[in-house]
């Protein structure tokens, strides 16, 4: 076989790679961006929050061990279960699987790093700072106490006047943004930075799972972000979205929350299932049976899970027929889960499994998750759910699903992948005990809860009377909870004894696994980037590890002298260009810190300091963006095999274009959710929309505004054309003095039309909905009002020209999108009431 690059490699090449990719030391280590470090910190932080939320659970179980207990007060108990649920979902489960993705994906795809390493570092710091302060709120009695689902009107200002609810809304809203940043990173990483030859049909199942996971975050999280925004608008400014007396409807929150909340379960489960699909072939030493079907199952689960949200609202009194649609979808989603479970069983049967610790956790997962899945089918039956809903049966079900479906695979993954990240593997002997304690603990803790629930114990009660006979079962559950705690403690001890972070001299491929993350590694990832010809390259391509390490494959060096990796085409993974990746820096760290500070200060109503932090956050984001978009600094480089690749791309081939599109999908979904909210509120106020006494502005306001929105899009298009023709300053003029004022003017006309007609957002849900639609466009107008002058500044400093226009293209897409969204908004707010009235 002929390799792209000859050996021996020139002197000094390896040293250069090492120097370029070396993480900073000392205090500067905070600025590190390598995925191998950020990924590990991220996982570590997630485990920390897992332990903390687990401790909260142990306090609750102690309180519930005996009837009429008064270990904790009712108010504190409510904070405990709210925090336990919120932290496990938002601070542990989602970040943990995202963190594993940040750590594993580049290695598994043989990229040197993710395409936006500072973005993942930003997401990590924002999450760590925001999450920690959020947790600490419990020591001041300020922790949210409305349940992790935060149903209004309990969480409205009237029934929750203190800041507790704001901590949830702002704290979690902000962490959701960090999750979205991570998801965009993962989509771009999986689609654009796979090793040459790793076409979609050769992609590891884990990468598929992470791709679908990230896609689900992009489409599910906007719903909860919007819900959070609406509730905070109601709490802070009295816009009555959820107050029945003023046209609001508490059920709107439930729809939005569960439109996120149900996919959330699969958002957590799919990456874990992806890990299982990686580990099972290794422990069986045979390729995964039914790869295509598993990929189908992953995609199918991702899509179908969006049809389940009312599954959580069976007791709200909706028409039976409506409920049944969701019952049907809940049944349909059982089929992809069945496919995966039988694929794993078939793979196990085709090989010979050694009962190592990862295998044990996989088997435990199969058992626990199957029970959770079956009780899931039971509660998908509407009549059964009317009994089981909001009882301990559901507590049992959801813990079987989430612990079985996520925690056990994650622990299997810890034991399985630690040899990649550490000098020593974890102890097999201790691992068996960890597994045993956790497995027995989970079943002792949660199995009895099925019965406790069926005999009538509701969820979220701080105590229960002795005469109901619930005491013994609760005591058993408490004992089980402590067994789980002991298992986790033992795991932490094992980690402390054996986990030694390294990249260069890791424990190596101890399991004889087939995928690329087991190639020899260092801070620069693999020495050269292999050509992949199989789904299991390390099994099917003999000598791959040595050849990669010797530098015989692509890009064994750093031809531009910066951090770089190969961007390949999304479907067929053919090399397309070399992307220069940013290295360590302070700006994203400071941006994360000030963003977190801004949100947290807003929570406690320190508005002025919050604004100052917000301005600083924007400043550091811009400073960070200033260094991006390097332009074609270097002529095309030879990566081996006669392949000369450009080092810069613009347009729809560029990774920044893909990231922007992902972001616009988030924005578009948010807006769609707002359209849904508008129509939903109409349905609660049929015949009174707009409410009596409120006039619609004349159509001239709408048409004037529409003309200006169109003009802004056209002027932006003109700016793009003139830039392409080399007339930089005409282009800048069109954008800064044409498109931007037209956009702001259009928004002003739009908003003033409603205002002069007498509409106020505080009076009725109708007005609140109209002004929120305007605000969602306003957010983009505001962003562009900052970003357009930023582009002009770049042009002035020679950082923007006909060739170097990736950042200009980002602005262009934003202009187009904003005009489009605003026009749809106009049609809705002016057209719909006229159509139904």
């Amino acid at each position, binding site marked *: 076989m002929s390799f792209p690059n000859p050996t021996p490699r020139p002197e000094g090449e390896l040293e250069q790679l090492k120097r370029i990719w070396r993480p900073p030391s000392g205090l500067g280590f905070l600025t590190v961006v390598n995925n191998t470090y950020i990924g590990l910190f991220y996982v570590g932080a997630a485990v920390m929050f897992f332990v903390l939320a687990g401790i909260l659970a142990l306090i609750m179980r102690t309180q519930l061990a005996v009837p009429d207990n008064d270990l904790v007060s*009712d108010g504190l108990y409510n904070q405990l279960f709210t925090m336990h649920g919120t932290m496990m979902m938002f601070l542990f489960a989602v970040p943990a699987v995202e963190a594993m993705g940040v750590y594993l994906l580049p290695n598994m795809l043989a990229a040197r790093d993710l395409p936006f390493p500072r973005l993942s570092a930003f997401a990590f710091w924002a999450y760590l700072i925001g999450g920690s302060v959020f947790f600490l709120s419990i020591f001041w009695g300020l922790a949210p106490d409305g349940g992790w689902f935060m149903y209004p009107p309990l969480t409205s200002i009237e029934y929750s006047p203190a800041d507790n609810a704001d901590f949830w809304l702002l704290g979690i809203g902000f962490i959701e943004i960090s999750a979205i940043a991570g998801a965009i990173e993962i989509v771009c990483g999986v689609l654009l930075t796979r090793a040459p030859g790793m076409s979609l049909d050769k992609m590891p199942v884990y990468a598929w799972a992470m791709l679908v996971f990230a896609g689900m975050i992009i489409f599910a999280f906007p719903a909860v972000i919007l819900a959070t925004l609406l509730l905070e608008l109601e709490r802070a400014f009295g816009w009555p979205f959820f107050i029945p007396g003023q046209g609001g409807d508490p059920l709107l929150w439930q729809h939005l929350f569960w439109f996120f909340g149900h996919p959330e379960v699969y958002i957590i489960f799919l990456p874990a299932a992806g890990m299982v699909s990686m580990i099972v072939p290794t422990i069986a030493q045979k390729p995964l049976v039914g790869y295509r079907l598993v990929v189908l199952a992953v995609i199918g689960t991702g899509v179908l899970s969006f049809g389940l949200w009312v599954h959580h609202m069976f007791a709200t009194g909706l028409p039976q027929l409506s409920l049944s649609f969701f019952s049907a979808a809940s049944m349909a989603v059982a089929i992809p889960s069945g496919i995966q479970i039988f694929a794993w069983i078939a793979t196990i049967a085709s090989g010979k499994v050694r009962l190592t610790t990862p295998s044990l956790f996989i088997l435990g997962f199969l058992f626990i998750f199957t029970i959770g899945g079956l009780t899931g089918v039971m509660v998908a039956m509407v009549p059964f759910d009317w009994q089981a809903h909001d009882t301990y049966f559901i507590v049992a079900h959801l813990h079987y699903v989430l612990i079985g479906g996520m925690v056990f695979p994650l622990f299997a993954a810890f034991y399985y992948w630690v040899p990649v990240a550490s000098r020593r593997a974890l102890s097999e002997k201790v691992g068996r005990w960890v597994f045993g304690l956790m497995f027995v603990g989970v079943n002792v803790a949660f199995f009895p809860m099925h019965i406790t629930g069926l005999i009538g114990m509701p969820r979220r009660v701080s105590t229960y009377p002795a005469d109901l006979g619930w005491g013994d079962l609760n005591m058993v559950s408490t004992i089980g909870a402590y067994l789980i705690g002991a298992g986790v403690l033992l795991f932490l001890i094992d980690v402390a004894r054996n986990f030694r972070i390294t990249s260069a001299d890791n424990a190596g491929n101890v399991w004889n696994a087939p995928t690329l993350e087991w190639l020899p590694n260092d801070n620069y990832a693999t020495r050269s980037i292999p050509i992949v010809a199989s789904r299991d390259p390390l099994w099917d391509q003999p000598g791959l590890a040595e050849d990669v390490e010797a530098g015989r494959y692509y890009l064994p060096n750093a031809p531009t002298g910066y951090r770089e990796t190969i961007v390949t085409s999304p479907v067929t993974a053919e090399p397309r260009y070399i992307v220069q990746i940013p290295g360590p820096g302070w700006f994203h760290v400071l941006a994360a810190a000030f963003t977190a500070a801004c949100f947290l200060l807003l929570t406690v109503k320190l508005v002025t300091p919050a604004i100052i932090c917000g301005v600083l956050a924007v400043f550091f984001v811009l400073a960070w963006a200033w260094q991006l978009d390097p332009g074609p600094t270097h002529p095309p480089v030879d990566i081996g095999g006669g392949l000369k690749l450009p080092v810069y791309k613009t347009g729809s081939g560029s990774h920044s274009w893909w990231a922007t599109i992902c972001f616009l999908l988030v924005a578009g979904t948010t807006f769609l959710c707002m359209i849904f909210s508008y129509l939903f509120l109409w349905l609660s106020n049929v015949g009174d929309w707009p409410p009596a006494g409120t006039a619609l502005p004349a159509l001239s306001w709408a048409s004037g505004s529409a003309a200006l929105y169109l003009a802004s899009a056209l002027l932006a298009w003109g700016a793009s054309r003139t830039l392409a023709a080399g007339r930089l300053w005409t282009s800048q003029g069109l954008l800064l003095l044409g498109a931007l004022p037209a956009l702001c003017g259009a928004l002003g006309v739009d908003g003033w039309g409603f205002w002069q007609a007498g509409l106020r957002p505080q009076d009725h849900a109708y007005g609140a909905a109209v002004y929120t639609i305007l605000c969602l466009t306003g957010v983009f107008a505001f962003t562009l009002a900052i970003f357009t002058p930023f582009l002009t500044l770049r042009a002035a400093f020679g950082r923007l020209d006909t060739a170097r226009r990736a950042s200009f293209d980002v602005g262009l897409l934003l202009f187009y999108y904003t005009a489009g969204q605003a026009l749809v908004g106009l049609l809705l707010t002016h057209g719909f009431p006229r159509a139904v009235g």
Partner: protein
Amino acid sequence: MTVGGALILLLVLALTAYALLAAPETRGWLGSRRTILWGGIAFPTVTVTALLIYGLLVARGIVTPAVGEDVQRVEVVGEQFWWRVRYLDDDGRVLFETANELHLPVGRTVELALTSADVIHSFWVPALAGKLDMIPGRTNILRLRAERAGVYRGQCTEFCGVQHARMAFHAVALEAEAYDAWLREASGPAVEPATSGLREGRERFLQLGCGACHAVRGTGAAGVLGPDLTRIGSRQSLGAGMMPVTAENLAAWIADSQHLKPGNLMPPFDMLPDGEAQAIARYLESLK
């Protein structure tokens, strides 16, 4: 359904054990795509479709009201953290109001109009019917029927705030005659105090302004914020399922209900002189 679920679990476990432990030559057949097609696609498709149809048929039986039946209509309003219960006549007018207790005739359908005065609650008597939410601004209809006389416990199942755990009630199912008798008594005014001590208690009750929040029909007390106390002495519990209605419990509640059930809307009356709370409590306990 539970049995079916257990059987499927056993099947999965047995197959896994077989895949793990059987000799390689005998388990080979399991290691192919066929396994997924039959076990992972065909089998769940059939079971799940059958189950869905079965579930839909059961649900249809539950939600379809019987035509022309003589139903008792009751409005139940969830409040933080108790239940306002209003019996309605056939035209939907309020006959009388009570609290934390639902009396129903055995063998007759009772149609409950469920709503809420503040946050979302959920109405559930496990032995009688599934649960249904009480949502402010909406009215949900729950039909239930007790087949045997008895006292059934119910509890709020939607988290509704600090005292969610102590928001229970009792459903008392009575045979037809007993129910009619109860209905007659319950719709009348409160009993007159029989002794001077009880009259004294009523005086203090009215003078202290308890009537600003509570109603005792037949006296001047006509408050609507708190539970109606017209027949508090005959109820199953005090504080929405917390404790039996005794004079001691009532006195303790009056003196400091915030200690017993922190976060309920009743202010503490711990400034009352000695014996006064007891006098009121004895009066209330006599309201049967």
